């Protein structure tokens, strides 16, 4: 029969993750954990896929805080089903460079094995998050260099 992760393990992991307690989080990560955050890495360099416990702890302990400092991570829903977990959260943080507050929803889809997290996919409303991280609305037109039709001789 497939592994069933106890809700108590999931909730303990959630508390450690919400608090960004790297030491506690480490106890729940499989050595070969795979952690993916979906989003544009040129704006949020912590996006992408990270392999292994050390890389994930570096992500949580260093890479994300270089962009934003999380001060609130509130759960709307934690679903546990066999070895799978889905979480919906609201993350609030301060931008590291000017301490402006940003806030967005985050979904985590997780896979546990033997009490350890072996896979996570994080999905967020990345358009909204990027605008908040940049601190201005995104322009929807295509960026392009000046062309002859744009130049005016004075």
């Amino acid at each position, binding site marked *: 029969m497939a592994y069933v992760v106890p809700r108590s393990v999931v909730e303990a992991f959630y508390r450690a993750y919400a608090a960004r307690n790297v030491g506690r989080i480490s106890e729940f990560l499989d050595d070969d954990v795979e952690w993916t955050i*979906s*989003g*544009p890495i*040129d*704006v949020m360099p912590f996006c992408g896929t990270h392999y292994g416990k050390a890389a994930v702890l570096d992500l949580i302990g260093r890479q994300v805080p270089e962009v934003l400092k999380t001060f609130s991570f509130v759960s*709307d*829903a934690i*679903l*546990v*089903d066999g070895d*799978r*977990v*889905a979480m*919906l959260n609201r993350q609030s943080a301060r931008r590291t460079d000017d301490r402006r507050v940003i806030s967005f*929803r985050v*979904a985590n*889809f997780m896979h546990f094995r033997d009490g350890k997290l072996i896979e996570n*996919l994080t*999905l*967020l*409303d*990345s*358009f*909204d*998050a*990027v605008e908040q991280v*940049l601190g*201005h609305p*995104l*322009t*929807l*037109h*295509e*960026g392009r260099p000046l062309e002859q039709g744009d130049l005016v*001789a*004075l």
Partner: protein
Amino acid sequence: MANPIPRPLVDAFYKAYAARDANKVAEFLDDNVTWTISGPVDVMPFCGTRHGKAAVIDLIVRLVPEVFRVFSFIAESIVVDGDRAATLSRLSATRNGDGRVISYRLAHFLRFRDGKVIENLSLIDSFDAAEQVLGHRLALHEDRLADMDNLVAV
């Protein structure tokens, strides 16, 4: 405690939704369903919150197809717990106008009551989705009007 939702019911709803079978989807919607898709409304007009069964069906049969035609909707994970379900899927579609293929991940967080969906929140990697819907990279710099520093006397 809320009534747990049977997995076969969630699977049947998901099957109807993946097929964009509006009549079948309607059978699973509460009259007062609230349906939210997180994302930029000016790029993807189907984003935002809809209230009521008729508005959600209109979203599925008209508003989304005005932007793209879904040809594949594949579940990577379906998590069922109590009266809630969460799904992680990959949507593939062809853009109206030029037929270009777009593909992105999305999450649904659903709440059921008496066998009907009463609430849904969809989270998508909206930056990626917006770029694909627009058909070009988003400009990350801030648009600004010409000011004294930009002007050169020739």
